[in-house]
């Protein structure tokens, strides 16, 4: 029977906490940048420009093809150290590597999301005189966003896990601090189990976040909804719609009384 000693974990919670902070920092910043870059990559890949389009396709294909660990080593040792780029600390180099690869992946997801919106949507929008920019922001983007939420959530989970690879270049994130602790205490099982649980907690959190976002994008008819309305916004919306209905009915009753037809031209 193995003799477990959980004190190693409980006494070193502050170490885990420090590692967690670095991991969360790396992921939040890198994912935000990757998302913005991903949108840019997607739009450039969908552009009509005969030079930019294949260039972006190459960007996506090259950076998707390199193993993450190899790429991190290349950016840090291959570029930052070999070329003496002092501004690229280990953590910065790691984040650059994450951003480049994840923006390529996210760019593909966003491109597919934009293309998944039916062509008729663009046509209907321009048939009422909307500009192409207006169409993109009011019609295409909201629908594409909804489509890409689940795969983007997967990418975020992927980045949480990939951030552990920064351990190899000495970034003091979760895996690095755990490794140090394990080598010092020889309590490998307890120390690594705690790490596993932390990652599990992080990804579970993201899972519920994605589920919440998906639900938020599901529409509710505030007028015919039978369940009690959840938000203040919905209740205010209901009141506004009822007000509109009454106003319209009152106006058409007035017209009828004056001898007009109930249905009138614009």
């Amino acid at each position, binding site marked *: 029977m193995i003799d477990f000693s959980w004190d190693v974990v409980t006494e070193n919670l502050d170490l885990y906490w420090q590692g967690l902070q670095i991991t969360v920092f790396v992921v939040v910043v890198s994912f935000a940048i990757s998302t913005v870059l991903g949108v840019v990559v997607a739009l450039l890949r969908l552009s009509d420009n005969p030079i930019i389009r294949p260039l972006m396709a190459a960007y996506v294909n090259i950076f998707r093809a390199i193993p993450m660990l190899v790429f991190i080593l290349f950016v840090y040792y291959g570029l930052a150290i070999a070329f003496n780029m002092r501004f690229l600390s280990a953590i910065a180099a790691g984040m650059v590597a994450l951003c480049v690869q994840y923006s390529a992946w996210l760019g593909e997801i966003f491109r597919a999301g934009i293309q998944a919106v039916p062509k*008729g*949507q663009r046509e209907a929008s321009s*048939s*009422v005189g909307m500009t192409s920019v207006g169409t993109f922001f*009011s*019609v295409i983007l909201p629908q594409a966003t909804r489509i890409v939420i689940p795969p983007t959530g997967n990418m975020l989970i992927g980045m949480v896990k990939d951030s552990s690879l920064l351990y190899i270049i000495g970034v003091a994130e979760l895996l690095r601090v755990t490794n140090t602790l394990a080598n010092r205490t020889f309590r490998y099982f307890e120390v690594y189990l705690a790490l596993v649980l932390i990652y599990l907690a992080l990804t579970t959190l993201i899972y519920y976040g994605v589920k919440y976002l998906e639900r938020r994008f599901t529409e509710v008819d505030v007028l015919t909804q039978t369940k009690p309305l959840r938000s203040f916004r919905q209740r205010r919306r209901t009141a506004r719609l009822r007000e*509109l209905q009454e106003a319209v009915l009152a106006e058409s009753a007035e017209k009828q009384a004056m001898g007009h037809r109930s249905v009138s031209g614009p």
Partner: protein
Amino acid sequence: MTAEDSAAVRSNPLLALRAIHKSFGSNHVLKGIDLDVAQGQHVVIFGPSGSGKSTLLRTINLLEVPDSGSVTFEGVLYWAGNGTKGSARAKPRQLRQRIGMVFQQFNLFPHLTALENVTLALTRVKSMSREEAEMRAAKQLHRVGLLQKLGSYPAMLSGGQQQRVAIARSLAMEPRIMLFDEPTSALDPELVGEVLAVMRELAHEGMTMVVVTHEMGFGREVGDLNVFMDEGVIVEQGGRELYTECRESRTRAFIRAVL
């Protein structure tokens, strides 16, 4: 309408298409179409699948740009072949603000309520305030019998209701002319009637309309100008008598097969 008025209308039509040609790759879809639409006229275009009816309708608001030929609306030239650029013609977007279009597949915005579907262009294109836009949209939805569905999303509406929202969305822009591209073809048979009723009402109010449809009954009832197309050309056109006494054998064969 006096004789003078109708002469003026004839010489100065609301919409004039001249020598329209359009190919998709090697497929020559429109082979020199001329069409005049006068203010208040109801044009019904019919013909077999692949005859170019829908493409013709889509060139009117330049969703499809012709390879050659011209599109003139209210006396303004909007397209004259691929040669003309920039200042030679007005912008298609200006044209589309004045022409409403209803699609076979409705093409409602699924992430917006019925009301928001109608208000979107009012606030974004006509720069109306939200209150003003909502009031006008609600009136238009009342007009098509959907005042109870202001807050419904397209997925919660029947096909017929969706198409009526789409009609309201176009009407709210106060178009000078309405284009209907097989508006009832995607509907279950029992829902066709409610959409045709709205279109009939519009026609009676004097709205200028160009309708591509397989509903020959509708054409016989409201069509002032009935146009039979086959293989990219207008084979024959005429008033309501076209349905009973057409000259061309192709027209006769088609009408007999459909009715």
